[in-house]
Each structure stands twice: as structure tokens, then as C-alpha cells.
């Protein structure tokens, strides 16, 4: 079937004002869609990249977050020497950690949010990849010193190197900043576990993180710990633990994305329809001519649909270009499971961009369907006489 493609392309170019206005309308819709999805994706990626595949986290039975969990020292000793726990130089790769919160004001505001403080031991660094001191130095064991994630130091007051902050009645000095390739613990402050235990007068741990030998062990060991009636503990893979936390925040965002983009695309669809109806009306004579030249009704229909889809795809590309700089934006919100700050980047990923293109094309298709059908139904005589 012959299509007057050249004719359509020339039309897009000749009517550049109208083309651009329509394309931009669709572009903005696509940009908003990407913006919300990129935010949800950022949260998802931060949390799901945070767990190491062979790590298992042990919490008190019934806890949803480390903050409201506790594991006794005796429990920790039992867990450490269980079969299946990975060892390094004959020491089990397991770390009891203590978690608390401090309230800090955001930069440029009088109010702020809770920041997670994690008491860690030497094994904690081995169990987490990506940790890297980017300024200053690491804290010294036994001292009230702290390393702060760079992103948190950027967003909150009084957390730069040399600053002091208070946990209960003890002052801690920030001696270094760290970075961890966008994982969840990049929203934290790390201090020595023993210092934090004496500061908070807590005997025991919030959670235990340990490395197991292989995926099968992870499943069997976590079942064994969770089912042990004496322990009152639950063990889950670190991945699952973080993925469960993202549920509420990014789930709500995806609903919001759906709602906003549905309504915006209806609006953009109407706009596209308007433009295409006008285009068809203005080009009635041309359509008649095309028919005389031998292009069939179906050719006309498809040609107009394609023209509109092309405009919409141009729009989607504009939208993607508008949304791309978001990749450089880092933001934060409170995690409603832990009541603490979680920092993350917007992520405009290739699959989201592909989705955006498809989405644009669909708006273009729906917007032009009725006008194109109309164009294809003109009688040659009437069209030429118009």
C-alpha cells in the first residue's frame, strides 16, 4: 500500500508553529510522567540496591524496622556460630548493630527530620560493599566520633567535619564524610558500636547482620531462626528487608503518577485532536488531490495517523530531554516505616524513557484517530470542491 509519507513530513515541517505547540503539550505530559516515575524509581533503586544478596538481617519477632527491634548479646553469640554463617580468617562474618535517631534541622530551615545513627563494628564494613571515606578519616573505636554520609551532611545543618552533635547527653564529633554508591545506608551517620551502646545505655543490639554461605543456606537458616520458639527473632534476607520498606513510599508515588498522567494525557489527547481536526479541515483539498492521484482511503487514514504519532513522538523526545536533567537532582523524604530521612536521586532510566516514548505515541494515536477517520471518508468530489 502506497503512503504519501513525503507529503506528511513536509506538512510537519511547514506547519512548525502548530507542530511544536502540540509536541510541547505532549512533551510536558511525558515530562511530568517521567518526573514522578523517576522519583519512585529512585526510591526503589536506593532501597533494593542496598541489600547484599547473601546478607541476612535478624530482628526481633514482629519488628518492621531496626529502630523498634532488639537482639540480646546472648542471641548474637548463638547466631554467630550457627552452621552456614560465612567466615573470614576463622571469624564469623556477623555484626551486631545498634540504631538510633537524632533530630536535625535541614539546611536553611528551622525544622528538620530524623537522621539514623548506626553503631557499627569492624565486621560492618566487611558486610557492606561500596563504603568509602571521601573526606576526613574514620572514627576511632571507643571514641565519641562519627562519620556522616556526604548526602546527609549536604542536606542538614551542623554535620560537617569538625561539627558536634548530641546523642542523648553525649556530644559526638564529626571526623569524616562517606559515600556508598547510593545505597540506603548513605542516609546515615555511623559511630562506634561500643560508644553508642554506652551513650544510649543499651545492652544488646538493634539488629544482627550476617553473611551466609549460599542462597540455599539463606533460606533454610532464616527459616530456622524465625521458627525457633525460644529465640523470638525473625531473619530475612537484607534485600527483602529493604524492599519491604520501599513499598509504601514508591507505591503511593506510582499511584500519583498514574492519576496525574492519565488526566494530563486526556488533556493532551483533546489538544492533539483539536490540532488534527484543524489540519484535516485545512487540507481537505489536498486530501482530495491525493485521492485523485490514487491513494486509497486506508492510505489516507494511516498517513494521518502516522503524522500525528510522529508529532507525538517528537513531543515525547522533548519531554525526555526536559526530564533528563533530573538525574542530577538528589532529594530526600522521610521513610514512614522508620521515621527517618532517606536520601535518593531521581532516576530517569532507559526503560522509563522507552515507556515515555510509547506513552507519547499512544496519546498521538488516540488523539488523531477520529480526525484521521474523517479525512479518509471525504468524497473526492466534495474534497476537491472545498
Amino acid at each position, binding site marked *: 500500500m502506497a503512503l504519501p509519507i513525503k507529503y506528511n513530513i513536509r506538512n510537519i515541517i511547514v506547519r512548525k*508553529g*502548530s507542530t511544536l*505547540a*502540540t509536541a*510541547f*503539550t505532549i512533551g*510536558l*505530559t511525558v*515530562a*511530568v510522567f517521567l*518526573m*514522578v516515575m523517576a*522519583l519512585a524509581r529512585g526510591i526503589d533503586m536506593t532501597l533494593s540496591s542496598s541489600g547484599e544478596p547473601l546478607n541476612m538481617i535478624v530482628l*526481633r519477632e*514482629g*519488628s*518492621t*524496622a531496626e*529502630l*523498634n527491634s*532488639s537482639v540480646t548479646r546472648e542471641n548474637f553469640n548463638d547466631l554467630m556460630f550457627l552452621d552456614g554463617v560465612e567466615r573470614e580468617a576463622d571469624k564469623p562474618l556477623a555484626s551486631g548493630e545498634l540504631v*538510633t*535517631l*537524632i*533530630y536535625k534541622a*535541614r539546611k536553611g*530551615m528551622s*525544622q*528538620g*527530620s*530524623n537522621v539514623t545513627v548506626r553503631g557499627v563494628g569492624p565486621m560492618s564494613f566487611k558486610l557492606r560493599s561500596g563504603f568509602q571515606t571521601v573526606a576526613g578519616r574514620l572514627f576511632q573505636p571507643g571514641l565519641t566520633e562519627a562519620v556522616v554520609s556526604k548526602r546527609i551532611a549536604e542536606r542538614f545543618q551542623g554535620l560537617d567535619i569538625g561539627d558536634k552533635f*548530641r*546523642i*542523648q*547527653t553525649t556530644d559526638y564529633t564529626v571526623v569524616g564524610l562517606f559515600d556508598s554508591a547510593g545505597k540506603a545506608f548513605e542516609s546515615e551517620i555511623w559511630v562506634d558500636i561500643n560508644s553508642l551502646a554506652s551513650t544510649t545505655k543499651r545492652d544488646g543490639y538493634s539488629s544482627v547482620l550476617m553473611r551466609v554461605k549460599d542462597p540455599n543456606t539463606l533460606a533454610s537458616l532464616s527459616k530456622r531462626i524465625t521458627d525457633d520458639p525460644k529465640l*523470638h527473632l525473625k531473619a530475612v534476607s537484607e534485600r527483602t528487608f529493604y524492599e519491604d520498606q520501599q513499598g*509504601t513510599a514508591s507505591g503511593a508515588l506510582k499511584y500519583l503518577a498514574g*492519576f*496525574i498522567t492519565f*488526566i*494530563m494525557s*486526556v*488533556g*493532551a489527547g*483533546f*489538544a492533539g*485532536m*483539536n*490540532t488534527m*481536526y*484543524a489540519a484535516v479541515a*485545512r487540507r481537505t483539498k489536498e486530501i482530495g488531490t491525493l485521492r485523485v492521484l490514487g491513494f486509497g482511503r486506508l492510505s489516507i487514514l494511516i498517513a494521518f495517523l502516522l503524522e500525528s504519532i510522529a508529532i507525538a513522538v517528537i513531543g515525547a523526545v522533548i519531554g525526555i530531554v526536559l526530564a533528563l536533567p533530573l538525574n542530577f537532582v538528589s*532529594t*530526600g*523524604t*522521610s521513610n*514512614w516505616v522508620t*521515621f*527517618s*530521612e532517606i536520601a535518593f536521586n531521581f532516576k530517569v532510566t532507559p526503560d522509563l524513557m522507552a515507556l515515555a516514548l510509547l506513552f507519547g505515541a499512544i496519546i498521538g494515536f488516540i488523539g488523531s484517530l477520529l480526525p484521521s477517520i474523517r479525512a479518509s471518508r471525504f468524497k473526492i468530489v466534495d474534497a476537491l470542491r472545498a
Partner: protein
Amino acid sequence: MKYAKLIFKNILRNKRRTLLTISSLVVSLFLIISLATILTEFDRGTEEASPLRLVSRHAVSLGFVIPMAHLQKMKTVPGVKEAMPFSWFGGIWKDERNFFANFAVDARKMRDVIPEIKMSDADWQAFINDRQGAIVGAKLVKLYGFTPGQRITLKSPIYNQSVEFIIRGVYTGSDEKTLYFQYDYLNELLPAWAKDNVSTFSIVTNSAEDVPRVGQAIDSIFANSDAPTKTESEREFALSFQTMMGGVKTFLYAIMAAITFSLLLVMGNTMAMTVRERTKEVGTLKAIGFQRGTITALFLGEALVVASIGAGIGIGAAALLFRLVDVSIVIPNLLAFVPTNQTLAMAFGLSILVGFVSVVYSAYRVSGLTIAEALRSTE
């Protein structure tokens, strides 16, 4: 006004186009109003905070508890009228998806501390008399069909404890999505490590002027204790929750700006088409003596009428829908979902502005053509 008929004739000339433009306006305004309402509802907690009340919590963060024993000392501070525990339980009913707030309080003091909670005297008495009793907000009743006398079990991950309550009353008032129960009952059931502690106290003062002084006085009592407090007005407390949302507000504003801009493009494009198609007519109008100003005004009037109709329907639909259907029931963290009059006025202003900007340039340009140029137009 003598041109009103001309304006309306012009609007009705291409009915399909007008209809599509208006529909586009309606959906965009509906969306803008919905988003703006999310923003104003975030602020509701701050606006509805009582000027007489304070909230006292652990100085470090809400993640820590303070001893119940603080209460007696708090009550001795001059200016304090009454105080009671107001402790977050975080209980989940059946499934995590059924999220609603639940607090342990002192049933006997509650009416004095939170007078905006309205319930019949009989229900108050029933609540006070039953240690296991609980009261629920009217919206929770709508959502889950709770009835007085019903037994419900809440499981709190914080305390790792399930507690069974008996519903004794349904209250109305500002926050109708909360369940309150007796602190004493909970305290008995708690494990040793959690006993005799609360997450926050709610304190009511004699007058609003007392609030800052009382806050400082309370904090200075406990400053050197194991559990120092941070006591602030209810408003400040609500505000601190809001800032926890972080960048969400900026994000919503950005989306609203994008919608407005795309609306401008839609309207602008349509009006430009309309004006261009009528170039020849403009020539005719000029030939029979119409001035440039009058012609511009005719186009402007047309755009403004279309914008007003779109705004009227969009605003009316949003106002009506959100009043008939209370969306807040299904959105956690929002207590209500009612567009404010300011939001509706803002939406109207916005669409008038869009109507004006969309046509002013093309109308001014076309009406400036000479008669000959306009008549020669091939559009």
C-alpha cells in the same frame, strides 16, 4: 455588551473545537485543584493545631520514649491546666494496609485536653468505665464499619504486642481517622522494658500566652535527667512532621507549573488557529470600520468566555466531587480532602490568565494587518 452576540456566535461556530478546548481546560483544572488540595491538606495539621496545647517528647527524637513519671512534674508547672499521655502505639488491625493512627491516652482527662473531640456523654462515660475500651473517629467507622461493642485486636510492631480493645464510642471532630484507648490498660500488658513509658505527652494550658513559657519550664525541669524533653506548641510539632516530607512540596509545585504551561500551549495553539482562520474576516471587519482595539477585544472576549466556561465546569466538578466523595478516607496521612476556597479561586484566576495570554499576541497581530493584507489571506 453589544458585541456579546458576535462573541457567542464565534464561539459556537466550530462547536467541536470549542468543546475540545473546554474539555482540555476542565481536566487540567481538575488536576491542578486536586494537587493544590494535597498541598493545603498537608498544612491542615498545622492550621487545626490548638493554640492552647503543647506536645512534649524526648529531646532527641520521637524514636525514644520518656518516663510516665514526668507527668506529675509537668502538672506542677504554673499555667498548665491538664496533661495526659498521648502515646503512639502503632497498632495494625489485621493487615498492614489498614493503616490508622492509634494512641494511648487517659480517658478521664481527654475531654479537658482535647475538647474538639465530640462524643455523647453516655459514650464518654462508657469509655471511661471500661479499661479495655477504645473510641474511634467517624471516618474509621465509614471505612471499616466498626460498631460499638465490637472487639478489635491491634498488633503493635513497636512493642511486639497484640492488644484487644472493645469499641465504646464514635467521636467526631477534626481528626476522625484515629483510635484512642486507655494508657493504663496497655501499660499492664507491656513487657518490662516498655512499661511506664510514653512517646509523647499532650499538655493544655490556661491561655495561649502561657504556651512558650510552659514549654521552656518543662524542658528545664528535665534537662539534666536521663530523658530530657523537647516541649513545643502543637503547631510547631505538626510543622516538624511536615518538614519530614522534605522535597514533596516542591515536587508538587513543579508538576502544577508544568500542567499550567501545557494548558497555555493547548489554549494558545487553538486560539492561534482560530484567529488565523479568520484573517479574511478581520479584513472585512476593518473595511466596515472596526478599529484594531475592538477587534482585539472581540478575540480576547472569546478566549475569556471559553476559559471561564472551562474553569466553571472544572472547578464545579472538583468542588462537587470532593465534597460528595471523601477521598481522604483512602489516603493515609491525610485527614480530609476538601479544596479550599482559595484553591478554587486560584484555579479560576489561572484559567482566566491562560485565556488572556493565549490569544493576546495573535489577536493583536492579525488586527494590525492592513485591510488589503487581511483580505488577501489564503487561510
